[in-house]
């Protein structure tokens, strides 16, 4: 069988698996976020934490909840790393240096999971479990909560309440992420992923580090986090031992972002609204996959930085999926991808992580883009734009524009400054245009909360640790605040009835406008930078 056919079968298998779970899982998530009953465990959590689960918050308080929760998350994770020597299972891996600890704390709380450290020598099992695994769950649950608040903004009318952040957070964690992660951690174990509390095993006279991999691997993919338990991430045979685990991990990355479009359609009472979003996400995902795959199949050194057991299709599929969501796990070294293939992974991030994007973040990002698309359509026909029965006035469009523009602003300023700093060239692993791509990729990854890297770049200097940390925080929280503000002003409106002048948002016209907006915004913003990096390299 040809490599192409084998790859197509893998993609087919993946699509079938997602199609099977799409309805039941999407509707299950809708019930989780709309139900009024609390489970016994949840009631215990609320009692202990003195949260009133039946009160609801205005958008400002919801946002304060997100920020407050994230701040304590960063502080606790920073302290856990700095105090590692006091924790069990540290295996002599001492206190994590302040720069690394700062960067990593922000990285994992913002769902970025950028790694400026070598896990095998830096992070003991306690920090991995109590710090990193926990934030793998919670940062994912925060993203889903914000997405649900935005959906409620469209669903509700004439209210200033968006739901209760603590309830959304707890339910997302306990009812969605925890059971699915547990189930798939066991599946991964059964397929050969390692689960050990030892520090390492002896292989032919050398020590290879081990870890409790399976539990973290499952949530790392499911929560679109991506921080490797081991340095080589999902390229490491202990994390991803065979072609089956590879496919399961890709499925896990996609399952929540894809099924959330069903959740959205169910919650707004029109499933076609969800299908159209999924159609746009899927089309762009497939288009970039085709580019990466073709580029890698025709590369000069197609196997450099790839694992033989995944082959080119399995590597291209993973690389595309991890960057089109905000995951950032890798099963091949993206730095060694071809100019065009690496450019494809970069482009996925520059789309703003919405094809289909991270857990929750993908849904709210594409909804914000839908607001922008309808605004552009409204300008063309000279009408006040509407989306899902809500008028998109000055407040709404301003909030959407801020949410969309935060990432490019932060990323381009960061890479621009980095490119002219004297120390930067010595941090690069490859000369010329590819070196610039390493810088662009780093800041795109941080600002989009992706976390993958053109890993050759050395980012351990104080400048990189600090500036990338700041990019991650701004790239996460500016859009979240803008999205919640948007949700607040949408919820306050009364729904306008559908009229002859309403542009339908379930058909191909809207789909092309939305897809076009995603591509256009990215193209207008990033073509100059891309031309100097991956495009220049691909033309060499």
């Amino acid at each position, binding site marked *: *069988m040809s490599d192409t056919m084998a790859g197509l079968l893998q993609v087919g298998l993946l699509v079938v698996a997602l199609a099977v779970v799409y309805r039941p899982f999407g509707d299950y998530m809708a019930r989780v976020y709309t139900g009024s009953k609390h489970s016994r465990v949840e009631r215990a959590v609320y009692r202990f*934490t003195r949260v009133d689960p039946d009160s609801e918050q205005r958008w400002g308080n919801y946002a304060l909840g997100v920020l*407050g929760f994230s701040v304590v998350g960063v502080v606790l994770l920073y302290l856990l790393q700095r105090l590692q020597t006091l924790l069990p299972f540290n295996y002599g891996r001492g206190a994590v240096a302040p720069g690394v600890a700062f960067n990593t704390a922000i990285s994992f709380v913002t769902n970025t999971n950028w790694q400026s450290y070598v896990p*095998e020598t830096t992070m003991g099992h306690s920090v991995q479990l109590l710090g990193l695994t926990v934030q793998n769950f919670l940062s994912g649950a925060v993203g889903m909560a914000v997405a649900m608040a935005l959906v409620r903004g469209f669903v509700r009318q004439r209210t200033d309440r968006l739901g209760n952040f603590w309830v959304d957070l*707890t339910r997302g964690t306990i009812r969605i992420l925890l059971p699915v992660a547990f189930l798939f951690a066991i599946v991964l174990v059964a397929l050969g992923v390692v689960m050990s509390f030892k520090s390492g095993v002896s292989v032919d006279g050398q020590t*290879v*580090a081990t870890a409790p991999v399976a539990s973290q691997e*499952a949530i790392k993919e499911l929560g679109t986090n991506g921080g490797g338990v081991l340095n080589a991430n999902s*390229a490491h045979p202990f994390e991803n031992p065979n072609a089956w685990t590879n496919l399961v991990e890709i499925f896990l990355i996609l399952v929540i972002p894809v099924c959330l479009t069903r959740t959205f359609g169910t919650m707004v009472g029109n499933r076609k609204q969800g299908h159209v979003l999924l159609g746009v996400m899927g089309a762009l995902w497939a288009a970039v996959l085709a580019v990466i795959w073709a580029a890698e199949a025709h590369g000069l050194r197609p196997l450099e930085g790839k694992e033989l057991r995944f082959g080119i299709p399995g590597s291209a599929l993973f690389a595309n999926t991890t960057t089109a969501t905000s995951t950032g796990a890798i099963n091949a070294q993206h730095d060694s991808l071809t100019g065009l293939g690496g450019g494809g992974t970069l482009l996925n991030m520059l789309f703003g992580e919405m094809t289909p994007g991270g857990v929750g973040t993908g849904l709210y990002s594409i909804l914000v883009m839908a607001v922008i698309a309808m605004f552009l359509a409204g300008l063309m026909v000279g009408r006040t734009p509407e989306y899902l029965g809500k008028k998109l006035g000055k407040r709404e469009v301003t909030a959407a524009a801020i949410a969309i523009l935060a990432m490019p602003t932060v990323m381009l300023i960061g890479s621009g400054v980095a490119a002219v700093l004297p120390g930067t060239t010595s941090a690069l692993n490859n000369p010329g245009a590819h070196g610039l791509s390493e810088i662009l990729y780093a800041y795109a990854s941080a600002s989009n909360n992706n976390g993958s890297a053109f*890993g050759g770049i050395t980012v351990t200097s104080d400048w990189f640790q600090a500036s990338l940390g700041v990019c991650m925080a701004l790239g996460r929280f500016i859009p979240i605040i803008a999205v919640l503000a948007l949700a607040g002003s949408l919820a306050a409106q009364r729904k306008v009835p559908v009229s002859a002048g309403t542009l339908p948002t379930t058909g191909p016209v809207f789909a092309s406008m939305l897809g076009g907006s995603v591509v256009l915004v990215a193209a207008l913003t990033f073509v100059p930078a891309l031309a100097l990096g991956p495009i220049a390299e691909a033309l060499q």
Partner: protein
Amino acid sequence: MNTVLKQTLAGLRILLVLTVITGILYPTAVWAVSRLPGLHPNAEATNTTLVAVPRDGTGWFFPRPSAATLPASGGSNKSEVNTDYTATIAQRRTEIAHREGVAEDQVPEDAVTASASGLDPDISPAYAAIQIPRVARETGLPLAQVRSLVSEATTPRPLGFIGEPLVNTTHLNHLLTTSR
């Protein structure tokens, strides 16, 4: 200010509770289930064949080149337009052709490129094939026996359709050790 403090304290309390659930109970439960007999024969990875590390001497099958410096796993991160690295690859090709006594164009791609993890245990059947005569010579084992060990360490295409058959060098070298 009062609201900020209130939200932050609520955040801290809920963080601690969820840390217990997702950071302690969850991994412990996964670990406990992973110990169920028959679920995973080797969750501790004792004597694992999942990874390959460089060995001394030449009486073995070589895995792919590794750019990792253990204990850190990883790849070269070199781009295909990096001319210095192109020279490195050409040099590897020459050395391997010389070592195995074959023409340079018979050295397959996986033999000269570094894997993503630096621990990839697998090589292509083509790379295994050119190593067979040397291994037979240096171990004193008959050619036919080495060939049969190679086929024993060869797994068919994963899932029946992904990629190519793989030869696991760690498994193969363990077989060699017991055959000597």
